[in-house]
C-alpha cells in the first residue's frame, strides 16, 4: 500500500481526483442524464429511443431553429474572428504602456456580465424608446424596428454576440502574435515581402492553431447561447430568432416536455463533436509537423 501510494502516478491521480469528481458530477453525469431524458416519452415513463429526434426533424419550426442557430453561430463567430484579428494587429502595433490601456478598454465587453450588458443593448434597441431610433430621428431617419422585424432582430442578436465575444478573440490572437518570432518578419522583409505577404506566409501559418482552437471553442459556446436571445427577443418575432437553447427552454421547461427539450438541446452534439475531432486532429498534426521540423 505504501509503495502504491508513493508512486508518482498515484499521487498525480489523487491530486486530480477532486477535479475528476467535479467534472463527473457537474459535466458527465448531467450530460448522460440529458441523453437519457432525450430518449424518454413526453411523460418520462417509457423509453422511445431516437423518436424524439425524428419527431423534431419533421417539424417546420424546428428546421427554422436549426437554420437560425447555424446562421447565428457561424455569422457571429466569423465576425468575432475577423474583428478580433484586426484588433489584435492594431493593438500589437501600439507601443508600450498605451497598449495596456487599450487592451484593458477593449476587454470591457467581455468582462461585464453578459446579462447586464445585453440588458443595456436591449434598452438601446427597445421597441418603444430605442436610443438608436432617437438618434436616427434627430437626422430625419424613420425609426427602425430593431427587435420587431425578422432581419433586424437577427442582425441585433449577432451584433450583440459579436460585441461581447470579439475581445476574447482579440486577446487570444494578440497572445499568438506576440509569440511569433520577430526574426521571421525580419527575414520576410529582407526577402522583399510586403504587409499582405507577411500576413499570408508568416502570421497566418504561425497562428493557425490558435485560430482553429478559438473558432472551435467560440462555435460551441455561441451555439449554446441563451442569454442574448432570451433578453433581446425571447425568440420573436414569430419564432424567427429562436436558437437551440431558447427553443429547448420553451419546449422543455415552459411547456413541460422535458424529453423533447433535452432532444433539442442535444441536437448539435454529434455535429459539434465531429467538428471538434476534425479541428483538434488538424491542430495535433500541425504540432507534430512543427516538432519534426
Amino acid at each position, binding site marked *: 500500500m505504501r509503495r502504491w501510494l508513493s508512486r508518482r502516478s498515484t499521487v498525480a491521480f489523487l491530486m486530480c481526483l477532486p477535479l475528476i469528481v467535479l467534472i463527473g458530477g457537474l459535466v458527465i453525469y448531467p450530460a448522460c442524464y440529458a441523453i437519457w431524458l432525450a430518449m424518454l416519452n413526453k411523460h418520462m415513463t417509457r423509453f422511445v429511443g431516437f423518436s424524439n429526434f425524428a419527431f423534431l426533424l419533421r417539424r*417546420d419550426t424546428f428546421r427554422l431553429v436549426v437554420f437560425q442557430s447555424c446562421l447565428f453561430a457561424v455569422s457571429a463567430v466569423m465576425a468575432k474572428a475577423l474583428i478580433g484579428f484586426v484588433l489584435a494587429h492594431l493593438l500589437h502595433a501600439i507601443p508600450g504602456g498605451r497598449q495596456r490601456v487599450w487592451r484593458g478598454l477593449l476587454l470591457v465587453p467581455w468582462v461585464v456580465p453578459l446579462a447586464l450588458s445585453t440588458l443595456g443593448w436591449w434598452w438601446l434597441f427597445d421597441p418603444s*424608446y430605442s436610443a438608436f431610433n432617437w438618434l436616427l430621428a434627430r437626422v430625419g431617419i424613420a425609426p427602425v424596428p430593431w427587435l420587431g422585424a425578422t432581419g433586424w432582430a437577427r442582425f441585433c442578436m449577432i451584433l450583440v454576440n459579436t460585441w461581447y465575444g470579439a475581445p476574447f478573440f482579440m486577446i487570444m490572437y494578440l497572445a499568438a502574435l506576440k509569440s511569433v518570432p520577430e526574426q521571421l518578419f525580419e527575414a520576410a522583409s529582407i526577402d522583399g515581402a510586403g504587409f499582405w505577404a507577411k500576413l499570408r506566409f508568416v502570421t497566418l501559418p504561425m497562428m493557425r492553431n490558435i485560430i482553429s482552437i478559438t473558432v472551435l471553442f467560440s462555435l460551441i459556446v455561441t451555439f449554446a447561447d441563451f442569454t442574448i436571445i432570451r433578453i433581446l*427577443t*425571447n425568440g*420573436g418575432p414569430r419564432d424567427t430568432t429562436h436558437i437551440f437553447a431558447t427553443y429547448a427552454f420553451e419546449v422543455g421547461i415552459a*411547456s413541460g416536455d422535458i424529453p423533447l427539450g433535452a432532444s433539442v438541446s442535444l441536437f448539435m452534439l454529434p455535429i459539434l463533436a465531429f467538428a471538434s475531432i476534425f479541428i483538434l486532429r488538424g491542430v495535433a498534426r500541425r504540432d507534430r509537423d512543427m516538432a519534426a521540423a
Partner: protein
Amino acid sequence: MTMTVSRRQALAAAAGAAALPLVHIRTAGAAGKLAVGFWDHWVPVGNVVMKKLVDAWAAKNKVEVTIDFITTVGNKLQLTYAAESQARTGHDALAFVLWDVRNYQSSLAPVDDVVEPLIKQYGQINPVIEYLSKIDGHWSAIPSSSGTQYKPACARLSFFKQAGFDPEVVYPAKPVHTTESDGWTWQKMLELAPKAKQAGLPFGLGLGQTTDSVDFVGALFRSFGAELVNAKGDITVDSDEVKAAIEYMARLVPHLPSDIYSYDDASNNRALISGKSALIFNPPSAWAVAVRDNRPVGADCWTFPNPSGPKGRFVPSLPFFWGIWKFAKNQSAAKELLGWLCEREQVETLCNAVSGYDIPPFLSMADFEIWAKVEPPLGTVYNYPIRPWHNSVPSIAGYPAPPEIAVQMYNRATLTTMIGKLTQAGQSMKQVIAWAKDELEGFSR
C-alpha cells in the same frame, strides 16, 4: 383496576384507526417542520403580510415554517420546480403558475380534501383555475389568491371621454349593469383605434411571444368562438371563427403601434405609463406604477372588462396555485397552512395589502371593499375583479383544448404568431392555417 373492552368497542376502534390514513384530519397532523416557497410578490408589502400571516399560523399550530419568496422573473420559480421534482427534495409546497400544475401533476399530492371544503364554503371557483388544476376529477393544487390576476382593459379616461365613450359611465364604480356596457365590443374598439392613433395614443396591444400578448389574443379568439383545438383534442383551426378572429386583428393592426411584434410583458405597461397609449390589457400594476411615476397619467386611468365579441365577453385570467410535492415530508401541515390561507379573512388581508392586485379564486370574494377604495381616481379598479353584472367569463388562451396541447399553444404563442404571419410576414390565410395545423399536430404528439 381492570378495563374490559367489548367486542363492539374493539371493532369501532379498529374501524376508526383504519380510516385514519384516508382522511385529512385538520389540526391533528399539523406539527413539525414545513418549508414553503411562495411567489415573490411584485408589491413588496405583499411578502411582509404573507410572512406575518404564516408566522401567526405557525405559532398557533406549533409548526416551524420556513418561507422563501421565489420570483417569477427569469423563470426562477419554474426552474425551482424542475430542479426539485427531479431531485425529489426541496420545499414541501411551492407556488405554481398557470400550466405548471399540469406540467408537474405527477409529482404533486392530490388536495381534494383541502379544495372541496373551500368550494362548499365559498361557492363557484374561477373556471380557469378548475381547467388548470382539476385533473381527472381530482384537485392537484390549491388555488392561491397571491399573484392571481385578471388582465382587463386599463384605459385613459381623457381620451375615451373625448372619443364619446366614457368608461366611468359605462362601467361605474358601483354594482350596476349599464346598457352602454353591452356596446363595449371589439367592433367598438376597432372604431376607436384609429382615433387613438391619430391622437398619438395608439392602443398598446402586443403581438409578441409573452403572456400579455397571448392572453389578450386568447380572450379575443374565445369571444369570436375561435378554437384551434376542441375539447376532444381535434384540430379545428380551419374554421370560419378562427379566420374571422384573425381577419379582425388584420383590420386592427394598422392602428396599433408599429413595434407590437416585439412587445414583451413590460412594453404595454411602459406605453401606458409614459403617456403614449390610451389603452392596454393588464392588471392594475401598470396603473399603480403610473400613479407612482407619472401621476397625471395614473389619475387618468380606469379599469374595466375586455370588449365582447359574437360569443361573449372574456377576460384573461392568470391564476397562481400552491402545490404540495408527493415527496413532501410534512404534507399534512402544508395542507393545513395553505387551506387556512385560502379562507376569506386571510385572502382579504392579502388583497388589501397589495391594493387589490390579487384576485381571489372564488367568485364570491369579488366583493372586498378594497377595489372601491383604491384611488386615484376613486373607484379606478372597482371593475378589476369580474362582477356578476359584467357578464364576463375568465379566460385562458388555448381553452378548451386538452391542457397538454393548450400549454404548448400558449407557451409557443401560436395565436400571436398566426396573426403576425398574416399581418407582418405577408402570408395568406391559407398558409397561416396550414402552418398552424402542422404546429398543432406536433403539439398533439
